């Protein structure tokens, strides 16, 4: 299994449940960064991080503009902002127009992450009920990254993973637990 430096995850409807289950697979310490777009109401003021109760001391928080991205941390795109990755591996935020009716948009995060991390990136699309992420996952794949989609047959809301599968080839179609194991393997030092 190849080692990645960063994992980007996109999800909307059903996302909180799916992420809770998935992130529980992360070991106490891991060597990559996890960056998540979860579609939420623009007015939620970033409280989605409070839904997750994690063991990491390092943190689970809303990404700040110009914040350096550290390994072993889990970041969320703040509500009502797009989250992008700069080539010096810091975050940038933007209030540009919505993409796929969404801000934050999974496509925007995945595309900019692919430009920076190339083959050191894994992109994962989970449950959801729109098509955001389908384009972005293809960009991840084009830049040599690993493209993973939750099996629509096992997703709470299959539209989003299905849209990603329709957009082009991916590397894996897996259940949440299988994706969790992939994360756990991707994070161990040998």
């Amino acid at each position, binding site marked *: 299994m190849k080692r990645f430096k960063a994992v980007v995850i996109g999800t909307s409807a059903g996302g909180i449940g799916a992420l809770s289950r998935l992130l529980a697979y992360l070991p106490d310490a891991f060597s990559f960064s996890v960056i998540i777009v979860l579609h939420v109401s623009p007015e939620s003021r970033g409280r989605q991080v409070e839904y997750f109760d994690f063991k990491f001391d390092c943190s689970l928080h809303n990404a700040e503009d110009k914040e350096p991205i550290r390994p072993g941390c889990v970041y969320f795109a703040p509500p009502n902002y797009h989250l992008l990755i700069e080539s010096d591996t810091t975050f940038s935020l933007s209030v540009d127009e919505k993409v796929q009716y969404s801000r934050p948009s999974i496509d925007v995060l995945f*595309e900019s992450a692919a430009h920076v991390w190339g083959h050191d990136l894994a992109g994962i699309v989970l449950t959801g009920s729109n098509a955001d992420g389908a384009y972005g996952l293809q960009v991840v794949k084009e830049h040599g990254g690993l493209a993973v989609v939750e099996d629509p047959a096992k997703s709470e809301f299959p539209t989003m993973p299905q849209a990603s599968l329709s957009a082009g080839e991916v590397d894996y179609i897996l259940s949440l637990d299988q994706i969790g194991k992939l994360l756990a393997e991707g994070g161990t030092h040998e």
Partner: protein
Amino acid sequence: MNPSRIEDLEIDLLFEAIFKRYGHDFRDYGRASIKRRVMHFLAQSGYKKVSEMIPRLLHEKAFFESMIRTFSISVTEMFRDPHVYQHIRTQVIPVLKTYPFIRAWNAGCATGEEAYSLAILLKEEGMLERTRLFATDFNDELIEKAKEGIYQSKKVKEFASNYQKTGGMNSFSEYYNAQDEAIAIDPSLKKNITFANHNLVTDNVFSEMHLILCRNVLIYFNKSLQDRVLKLFSESLVPKGYLCLGTRESIQFSNVRGNFKTFDNGRRIYQKER
């Protein structure tokens, strides 16, 4: 060199060309966002590569202007983040009232929504007559739109709902005149506003300010340009003057953070140390 790196190099050359030909400096913009806009413009232009646009850009000003338009698309609304405006109303303006006269600056005003929002607060708190509000942007087209103060009717519901959440004392409809598909901001709000061209990247301090509102502008700049702009703000403010940034912007990664104390962290309002 991989294609992504070559693309970055092309964008470097594009910005160099724009700077040398037209004086607009995008070189220190946050690359990830501006790259999206360049690629967006490229897709519309019919060219295949970024570098192919450079010759036309150099020789045809209209082409440059249409690119600038793409670069400065802004998405804003009146009273965006109402809790911030509510805090300005209840915590900042009462202090500003102790001055006989104040100057406020809305830097990066785009189409003017924030400037008018602030004007409404100041009016309701009885301060507008004692205020000179500067609303500036680097894009002349946007400044013209801001001066007009005409917005789509479909946005009114959101504006009005935001306004109520700031603790608004009136009906929001008192502040505009309805036209067909649009609303026009009431002229009484414009009297104390000066709309002007100012470029945060290249221009300097132009007056002494008691309040600076610059929201969701710094996120488009890289760290060194953010430092420049925050230094400019620091030099523009009177001692104890207020700086209000976007709710996800902060001075914590900047060199000038020592010049400010945090007035309200959640709302990203800072106060200049004396």
